[in-house]
């Protein structure tokens, strides 16, 4: 039996769908990358992103986001995948983390120790992910691509990218889940052991 009655039913399916880009803020000229640029973020922003990613998924008994090169890959997605509004949202979410850390501790987020970063980010994360009513006219989700409407959409997008890039990395998939590219035979019934890990999926089905 599982403790599923305590789960948020609306949120339960959120990981089945593809990431829904959060686009609440208007695009700004600032969010345009230089043509042909391999990087989108500036060095201090990359340092901040690295600190945030390392706090969201630190090295524990398994490697963390830094070992999976998540910051560089998020930067790559900002340069090559994200729209201007998504970039603005993510850059805004990073800036809000830094500003709130400064207001609260007197130090920028990167200047904090690992323990201080975690102590700061945990309540920030909870507040940012608080469900709010979707804005009027927001696209309706479906059971496979539910929409998410939270207090800080930019933070949600950022955290989604960090988690996706980690679990879809060689390091993350090998250490946290199991991924076999060519499973061969389908085995319909396997008895779980304490060592068993869920398989990384490759798509909605």
């Amino acid at each position: 039996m599982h403790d599923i009655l305590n789960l948020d039913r609306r949120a339960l399916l959120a990981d089945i769908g593809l990431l829904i880009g959060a686009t609440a803020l208007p695009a700004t000229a600032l969010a345009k990358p230089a043509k042909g640029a391999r990087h989108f973020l500036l060095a201090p922003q990359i340092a901040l992103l690295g600190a945030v990613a390392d706090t969201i998924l630190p090295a524990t008994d398994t490697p963390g986001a830094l070992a999976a090169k998540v910051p560089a890959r998020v930067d790559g997605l900002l340069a090559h995948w994200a729209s201007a509004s998504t970039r603005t949202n993510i850059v805004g979410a990073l800036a809000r983390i830094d500003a709130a850390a400064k207001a609260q501790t007197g130090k920028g987020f990167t200047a904090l120790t690992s323990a201080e970063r975690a102590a700061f980010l945990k309540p920030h994360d909870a507040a940012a992910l608080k469900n709010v009513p979707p804005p009027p006219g927001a696209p309706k989700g479906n059971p496979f691509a539910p929409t998410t409407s939270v207090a800080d959409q930019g933070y949600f997008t950022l955290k989604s990218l960090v988690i996706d890039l980690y679990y879809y990395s060689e390091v993350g998939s090998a250490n946290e889940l199991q991924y076999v590219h060519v499973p061969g035979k389908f085995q319909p019934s396997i008895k779980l052991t304490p060592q068993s890990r869920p398989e990384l999926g490759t798509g909605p089905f």
Partner: protein
Amino acid sequence: MFDAIVIGSGMSGGISAKELCERGLKVLVIERGRKIEHVTDYNDRQMPWELPNNNRIPEDEVKRDYPIQSQCYAVNAATKQFWVKDSEHPYTTPEGKPFSWIRGYHLGGRSIMWGRQSYRLSDIDFGANAKDGHGCDWPIRYEDIAPWYDHIEEFIGVAGSMEGLPQLPDGKFLPAWELNDGEKLFKASVEAKFPGRKVIVGRNANLSVAQPHHEALGRNSCQNRSICERGCSFGANHTSLSSSLPAAERTGNLTIVTDAIVHSLVQDPKTGKITSVRVIDAKTMQGRTYEAKIFFLNASAIASAQILLNSRNEANPNGLCNKSDQVGRNLMDHMYALTTAGAMPTYPSDSYYHGRRPTGIYIPRYRNVTEEASGYVRGYGFQGGVMRMGGKPRANDPGIGQDIKDKGRKFGPWLTFISGFGEMLPNPNNRVTQSETKKDKWGLPILHIDCAQGPNEAAMAKQILADGKAMVEAAGGFVISQASDAGPPGLGIHEMGTARMGRDPMTSVFNGHNQAHEAPNLFCTDGAAMASSGCQNPSLTYMALSARAADFAVKELKAGRL
């Protein structure tokens, strides 16, 4: 001069070409899209972390080039090359009546990315129009097509279980895939609570066990990767590139031309026969003509209708073979995305499975078969699965650090999802017409697609959702998420009906041999020819009709009647 020209290289065109080539005809296949190569043009060997942008298409590109195609679940960075750019291939719809026309223009067409679900129609379907008066009666019955279903299933390889159901005839199947433990429990509960319903494993065109005749074409058994829509380097799913075109090619009778967009057919006004096909070179924009003795339209439902409409001339101002005024009408798709998802708290927490089985469960139609229906005719089936939650954690759950990793490692509850596929009635007002003013970059008229689900579909959709909830609950689960409406028409990607078969030339376009009433050497065996839609995934029927019509056409040709 060829013996036969097949227009389109997708699901039905590949089979038409194979069957005609195997009967000794010199065949030209005309494909509007580019040439792609089996295996070398697929992205199925890349590991997840090797795909560009974590398998996402850039957001601005989606908005600019793929706003409609991206509604399809199979569109991602690994498959992007297989979908048309909406920006390059426009069509119009009336305000407030969207139609999602999902397309792939390349050798093999949508057979590369298809969902592979393969179900026979039954006499309940072939007799439906005659019974309730919607549409025109099918000119064939199940016994006419049954041997051709056998023929196609053996060739393409369909894995499935024998069930003995009148509404879903059994076929020549490869060994069925096995149900997982959650699905077995779901099946037992649903079948016990609803004696007229069956939960079976999905029948699909993936080689559960490759047979020697599959291996002779370079095809191998399925490896349970479930990334079929990227193209399969093992050749384990039937596509034109893995299966039908190689079979055609080995006869030595096949010629393929790509980047050739069919403009129109040319008809001899004296004999009524088609003499040639006019094409536009997609790259150079130059026009040219190909001649043959017989012609197969396999461009896909909407495109085949467009070719007939665009072949209009002074004697046929409404389009070729259109004295019935049915060309472009009766557009149907299956109602789609009527999904119910439920958690199954009592299912075994210590059971799992390994591998990504390339099919799910199927609940064959029971409404108006074993159970009554209130307020609508026809029926629906369900596709879905029962699977274990868990794996990559959700970003919207609060928590960081070890919390996230712990969640990812934990197996969640079993989840049931079942999605209704409902039959859409043939309605002459659901139609495709050509713009008189707007043209695409090749100078072809832009299509206007005016299609909507009607009251029968609305009543059915309501029942699909009610039944979905009832079945999840009968199996001990509770609903956690449910769709509120069907997806836009077109998104089922089962468009059909736009040049239907029938007995009467005044109400239909093609006869019981898929032969045009008004042009004896013209055949159409794609979705356009369907007189009704059933609720089963239709590709298997298109392929069976293609093989059957090819056999007839060659016999007629050899008898000197064409």
